[in-house]
C-alpha cells in the first residue's frame, strides 16, 4: 500500500476492467440476465459508488469483480490478470493479495477477537508474526479500535464490527476494496465515521474503492457515481445528489 497519493494515478491501463461482462442464471426454464455486456474500468485511486434497485445486478457485479464468481460471458481483468484464465486456487491467491472485501453483514469470524479477525488475511499470506502484530495494531488504531482489540465480535457494536471488517479488508494492503452496503447496518453518525475513514484511506493509500450503496450520504463521498439498472451500468447516475461535507 503506497504511503501517499503519488501513485494514485499511475500510467498504464486501468487497475480493474470488465469487457462485455455478462452473467445469466437459469431459474427453472427461465434465463435471468443479471448483467448484460458491462464494460467498466477503474484506475488506481478511484472511489466509485454503485447504486440501483434491488435485483438490478449490483451484487452480481461485485461478485464478479471480486473474483468470487465467474462470468457467463466477457472477462474481468484485475491488475491485468483475466480472472477467466485462473484456476480456483489462483483466484483465491488473487483475492488474498489484491482485493479487500467488506460485507454488508460484516462477516467477522465469531470465535476470533477483533485483532485476530484483522490478522486472519495476514496469516493467509504467511507473514511473520512480528509483522502481523505490528500491522494489526496499526490498522486497529487507524480505525479507532485499538482499545477493543481483544473483544469478540459479539462484544462489539454494529459500527465497531464494521470498522473491524474494514480493518480486515485493508490490513493486507490490497489494491482494491469492494464494499457492499458498508453502512447499511450503522446509525447515521457511525456511518459517517466509517465513510470518513474510507475516504481517508482512499486518498492516503490510493486504494480503489467500489462501494455498493443506497445511502445518498455514502454516495456523496464518491469521486464517481454509477447506476445499475436491469443489469446495465449507467455512468454518472446520481450526480445530482448532494456532496458530502468534508
Amino acid at each position, binding site marked *: 500500500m503506497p504511503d501517499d497519493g503519488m501513485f494514485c494515478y499511475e500510467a498504464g491501463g486501468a487497475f480493474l476492467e470488465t469487457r462485455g461482462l455478462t452473467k445469466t442464471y437459469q431459474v427453472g426454464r427461465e434465463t435471468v440476465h443479471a448483467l448484460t455486456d458491462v464494460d467498466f474500468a477503474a484506475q488506481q485511486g478511484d472511489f466509485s459508488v454503485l447504486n440501483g434497485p434491488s435485483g438490478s445486478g449490483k451484487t452480481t457485479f461485485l*461478485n464478479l469483480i*471480486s473474483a*468470487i*464468481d465467474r462470468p457467463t460471458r466477457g472477462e474481468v481483468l484485475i491488475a491485468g490478470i483475466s480472472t477467466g484464465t485462473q484456476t*480456483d*486456487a489462483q483466484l*483465491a*491467491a*488473487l*483475492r*488474498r*493479495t489484491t482485493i479487500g*472485501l467488506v*460485507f454488508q453483514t460484516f*462477516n467477522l*469470524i*465469531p*470465535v*476470533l477477537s477483533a485483532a*485476530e479477525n484483522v*490478522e*486472519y*488475511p495476514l*496469516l*493467509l499470506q504467511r507473514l511473520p508474526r512480528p509483522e502481523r502484530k505490528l500491522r494489526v495494531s496499526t490498522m486497529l488504531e487507524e480505525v479507532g479500535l485499538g482499545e477493543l482489540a481483544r473483544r469478540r465480535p459479539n462484544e462489539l457494536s454494529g459500527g465497531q464490527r464494521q470498522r473491524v471488517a474494514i480493518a*480486515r479488508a485493508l490490513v493486507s494492503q490490497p489494491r482494491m476494496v469492494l464494499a457492499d452496503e458498508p453502512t447499511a447496518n450503522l446509525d447515521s453518525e457511525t456511518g459517517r465515521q466509517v465513510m470518513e475513514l474510507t475516504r481517508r484511506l482512499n486518498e492516503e493509500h490510493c486504494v480503489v474503492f467500489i462501494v455498493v450503496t443506497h445511502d445518498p450520504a455514502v454516495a456523496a463521498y464518491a469521486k464517481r457515481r454509477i447506476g445499475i439498472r436491469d443489469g446495465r451500468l449507467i455512468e454518472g447516475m446520481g450526480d445530482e445528489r448532494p456532496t458530502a461535507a468534508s
Partner: protein
Amino acid sequence: MSVLLPLRSLLRNRRRSLLSLAIVGLGSAIAVFVLGYVQESRALIRQTSVDEYGNLQIAAPSLWDGDAEGYEYLIPPQTLVRIEDRLAADPRVVASTAQLQFPGLLAAGDQTQVVRVTGIVPGNPALPGPQEVSVGRGLDPGDNAAVLMGQALADRLGVSAGSVVTLTLTTVDGAYNASPLEIVGVFRFASEQVELQTLFLPLRYAQALLNTAGVDRMVLTLDRVSATWATRARLQATLDADALLLEARTWDELSPFYQQLSNLFDILFGFIALATAVLVFFIILQVLTLSFLERTREVGTVRALGVTRGGVFSMLLAEGGWLAVIGSAAGVGVGVLLSLVFNAVGIEWTPPGTVEPVTLAVSIGLSTALAPFLLGAAAAFLSAVLPASRMSRLTVVDALRVE
C-alpha cells in the same frame, strides 16, 4: 491460528461440543474397558494353560496327532539323555521333566472312572503338576504305589487321602495290568476337567505299570512365557540337527481351550470395537454435518478472503481432529478410571468348567489404552472427512448467500 481457529470453532457451541466429545469419549471408554477385560482374561487363561502344559513340550508328533500305533511314540532312555543335554545348554530353560501319560480305569468300591494317568518325577520343579494339594501331601521321591488325584475325582469316587484305589490299564505289550494305589494327597486345579480326569503317579512306578523304560514327552519350564516361541524355534533346530524325529510344541498349540477362547475374545472385542466405531462415526458425522452447515456463510467468508478449497477442507478436518483427540483421550481417561474402580470393587464369579471363583479384573496399561484411543480418534476424525469435503466444494457465492 490454523490450530486455534478449529479448536475455538469446536468449542463455540458448548453443549453440542460436549455431546460430541462425550460420544467419542464413551466409545473409547467402552473399548478401554472391554479390551482391558479381554486382555486380563486372556492372561489368566494363558497362565492356566502354562500351568497345565508347561511352556513347551517335546514329543513325537504322532503323540499329539493321534495317528500312532500303540505306544510307538515313546521316547527311549538314550534319546531322553540326549535331549536333556541339549536342554541343559539352553539359557531360557529353567527346569524340565519327563512324563508318561496313558489312559486307565480307576476303581474305588463300586465306583469307576476313566482317567488320564500322568507319571511325573516327584520333586521336579518343572510343571505341569498338581497346583495346590488341599488334602494330604504331594508325591515324594521315595513314593512308589502312591497317587495324587484331583478333588473332583476324589469326590466322584468318594475317597480321600489315605484311601486305596485300583488302577487298571493296558501295558505297552497289550497285556492287562492292575495295581492298588494309595492316595497320598488330593489337589485343586483351576479346571474342573483336569481335576476329574488327572491322576499323578511317580514316573518310575508308572513306567513299571506300563512295562516300559520310555517316556512320552519332556515338559519344559522357561524363565518367562514371552520366550516360548523363540525357544521353541531354537530347540526345534537342535532336534532336527540331531535327527531325533521329535517336535517341540508351545503351550498355546497344546491347549485347544486357549486357542478357542483366544479366538472368541478376538471376535468379541473386534465386534464391540467395530460396533462402537461405527456408532461413533455416524453420530459424529451427523453432529459435524450440522455444525459445518450452520457455518456455511463463514466458510464463504474465508473463501472470499482467499482461503483455497483445500484450506477449508483442512480447517474443518482439523476441527474433527481436535474432537477426535480430545474426546478419545478423555474417553481413555474415563475408561482407565472405570477399570480402576472395577478392579477395586473385586467382583467374583466361577466360570463354567472351573472349581474356584475368580476375581474379575480389567487390565490397565499402555496396550489397553492405545488401541481404544486410536479407534475412537480414527472414527471421529474420519467422520469429519465427508462434511468437510462437502463444505470445501461449495462455491463462494453460494456459501455467502446462506443466511
